[in-house]
């Protein structure tokens, strides 16, 4: 999850946050890290660029991108 946090910070230009400051279970959106809808699209790009994983069902987004841990689990379950 350490690498994933670094990738999120870089992909989303979160220069005011250190990767280690992001909690494994901290919500990424709204009251958590405060990400917005454009950030959600960038997270989809991150999955595609870094892990060659396409999020085919947009309805899965809220669950997949709930936290770094849920993203990491999704990556683990969908990597070839």
């Amino acid at each position, binding site marked *: 999850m350490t690498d994933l946090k670094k990738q999120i910070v870089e992909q989303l230009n979160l220069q005011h946050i250190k990767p280690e400051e992001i909690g494994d279970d901290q919500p990424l959106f709204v009251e958590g890290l405060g990400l917005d809808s*454009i950030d959600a699209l960038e997270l989809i*790009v991150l999955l595609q660029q870094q892990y060659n994983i396409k999020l085919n069902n947009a309805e899965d987004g809220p669950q997949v991108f709930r936290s770094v841990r849920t993203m990491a689990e999704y990556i683990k379950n969908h990597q070839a």
Partner: protein
Amino acid sequence: MLTDTLYITGSCSIVDNLVIKNGAVLFENRGLAAQPFLVAAYQHFAINYPRFYKMDSLAKLGWLATEILLQTGFDKTTYLPEDIGLVFCNRNSSLDADIRYYETVKTIASPALFVYTLPNIVMGEICIRNNFKGENDFFIFEHFDAGFIQEYVSHLFGTGILQACICGWVEIIDNAYHAALYLVEKTGTAINATFTAENIYNIYQTANG
């Protein structure tokens, strides 16, 4: 319809590795390219607005110039949000972001860059920050045109559309950048220049060295 005398109650220029407010250099950092210079200036003024880092170059430049312009001496609560507007101009529109976005399209298009592929987004960022809800206009010109700015903004005041206006030039392409923004109000003091084409041009030119 012309209005009574208008005043330039503040100005801020960002050009050539300098940040100049009301004629005084507030920040200088030679040797930095445009993007790192804008980030260095943002950090120098101890502004806390993380969204800044996500902006494209044009939005960073215009947003930062406005932020510094309004930092002291302007009480926006004396106006209704609908009475404060923005009139910006530049030469290359959002071409800087357009080129960067085009580069990403070759692999995976960046949504974060795509949203900045219009020049008026910089004004949206400023309005979000300050809750301004007045007239917004962005014009593309070959060159800085002080006469147009004076005439157009005066018309907005004269017809009662605006009571205060931030206007001027916000141009960036690669490492060439120049912002020259003016706060225009109906009342000023003896030290404020009147809102004439000559004074607008002189401030622009002074900042240009």
